[in-house]
């Protein structure tokens, strides 16, 4: 498999079954029975974004990333398209004081089936900033479990999910505050183009004794087709008094008052709708620092939304 042109020139590691290919020196990779393991013990190589490319296959479907104490790393994980893409699991383990900025992009073809399980365990003072783009997969089931295991760990999880024609997606997110003074912020932006069905269950748990924790959820969804469905079930399960927690959820077709406001400034209905939808896309696109990759993601999004009521 050749590297996609839009990744040429970037710091890229290609993860193939039984084989890891990269130019330059990226120590810490290992093949395992289930897939790949990456242990990052030195910040030097990882302070600039490194892109891990997964072609999408059935045989090796696990990526485990471990950061040693105090390490900072910036990673992109790109899941390329194959028609028979199966299950994939991502495990993240952040040691004390480690910090990971991760952009996780699923660009599978419309015909693919994806089952994705993601898990993070956060040690004391560690920080995970994860931005996820779900832009492919006709049948997608994603399950996230974020465990804030030790004090002062924090996670910020942003998701953009764009489901297109005949797609049915089920996403479950669970954030567990298992220690005091832990912080989580979850933002989900969902787009149902055409007749796509997206179900999201998002829950935050703050256990007893885990005081001064902060658990926030924001969920917004826009339905662009007459037959599209988005359902969100936000939950907060709090078993401690001295905490902050909140959730918000807004789902529907494009707000006619937003549309009107933009039109009063001269934008046509179509231009206004596109600008409103761009407001869903920009948080993810702004996080992709490589221009060629951002353009490719944008192209993929446009293809997915082609023919939507815009």
């Amino acid at each position, binding site marked *: 498999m050749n590297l996609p042109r839009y990744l040429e020139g970037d710091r890229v590691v290609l993860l193939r079954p039984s084989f890891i290919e990269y130019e330059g020196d990226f120590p810490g990779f290992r093949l395992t029975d289930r897939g790949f393991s990456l242990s990052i013990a030195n910040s030097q190589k990882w302070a600039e974004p490194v892109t891990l490319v997964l072609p999408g296959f059935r045989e090796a479907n696990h990526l485990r990333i471990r950061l040693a104490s105090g390490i900072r790393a910036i990673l992109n994980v790109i899941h390329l398209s194959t028609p028979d893409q199966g299950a994939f699991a991502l495990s993240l383990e952040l040691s004390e004081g480690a910090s990971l900025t991760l952009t996780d992009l699923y660009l599978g073809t419309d015909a693919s089936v994806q089952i994705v399980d993601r898990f993070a365990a956060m040690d004391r003072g560690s920080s995970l900033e994860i931005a996820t783009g779900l832009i492919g997969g006709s049948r997608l089931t994603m399950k996230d479990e974020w465990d804030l295991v030790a004090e002062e760990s924090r996670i910020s999880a942003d998701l953009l999910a764009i489901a297109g024609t005949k797609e049915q997606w089920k996403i479950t997110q669970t954030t567990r505050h298992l220690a005091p003074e832990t912080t989580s912020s979850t933002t989900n932006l969902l787009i149902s183009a055409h007749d796509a069905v997206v179900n999201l269950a998002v829950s935050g748990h703050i256990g007893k004794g885990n005081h001064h924790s902060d658990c926030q959820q924001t969920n917004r969804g826009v339905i662009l087709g007459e037959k599209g469905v988005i359902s969100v079930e936000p939950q907060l399960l709090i078993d401690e008094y001295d905490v902050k927690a909140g959730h918000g959820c807004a789902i529907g077709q494009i707000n006619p008052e937003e549309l009107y406001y933009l039109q009063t400034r001269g934008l046509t209905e179509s231009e206004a709708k596109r600008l409103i939808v761009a407001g869903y896309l*920009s948080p993810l696109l702004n996080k992709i620092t490589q221009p060629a990759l951002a353009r490719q993601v944008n192209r993929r999004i446009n293809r997915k939304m082609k023919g939507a009521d815009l």
Partner: protein
Amino acid sequence: MSILEIKDLVVSVEGKVILEGINLTVKGGETHAIMGPNGTGKSTLAQVIMGHPKYVIENGEIRLDGVLLNEKTVDERSRLGLFLGMQNPVEVPGVTNFDFVRAAVQAHLPQGQHLRLGKFILSLEDAAKELKMGSGLAHRHLNEGFSGGEKKRNEILQMKLLRPKIALLDEIDSGLDVDALRIVGENVTAMKSPELGMILITHYQRLLDTIVPDVVHIILQGRIVKTGGRELIAKIDAEGYDWLKAELGIETWEEPEKTPVSLGTCATKKPGPLRG
């Protein structure tokens, strides 16, 4: 010099007539104030001129420079030169102020002409500076998390960049503290020119002390019942609208009944045993 002409305008919403024969002419260079108690049709008039789809024109016409607006879409009216500064500008999450204003300015350029980005950025920065708005304004999401004063200043910023022929400013003074009111007032007054006609909708003299109108209209029960000069403002400020009752033979007027509407809930309830 532009001219906005409203003739015999009758408007309904959900089958109920709310404007009953409005006649109004506003020319470039003129500033008109529209005053009146709550619920008498002031904001409705502004929305109808702008083309809000909620309202149905039952009779009459609205023309801008001779062009009949009745069937024009909202965006067409904007591009023809109308501007509505809103009482409650909506928040549009995710859309930056910069992207929005740029799209709006581009929309007003002749077809095929592209915005010169550098020039636009300088204009935006200048306008923001004149309105004493923070430097981070451009990259904030449109009206999201803005204070009342910031929202109103942002409306005026758009007006400065779009350079309308006729501007309708709907309670642009609400939510403004004394300093913000002065800044808005100075900026709007500085825009006065023979190329700009303005309609100010307000409850309060304080706005009209800073943006001085040429003509004052009072709306009651969906009609313009009195037109005069600035002396009307002082009279309203001192006496309210009671004196008009006597003058017009109106016993009472009631604010239109507003039906509360549930905006829904995101809460879910699942059946199950109670614990504890």
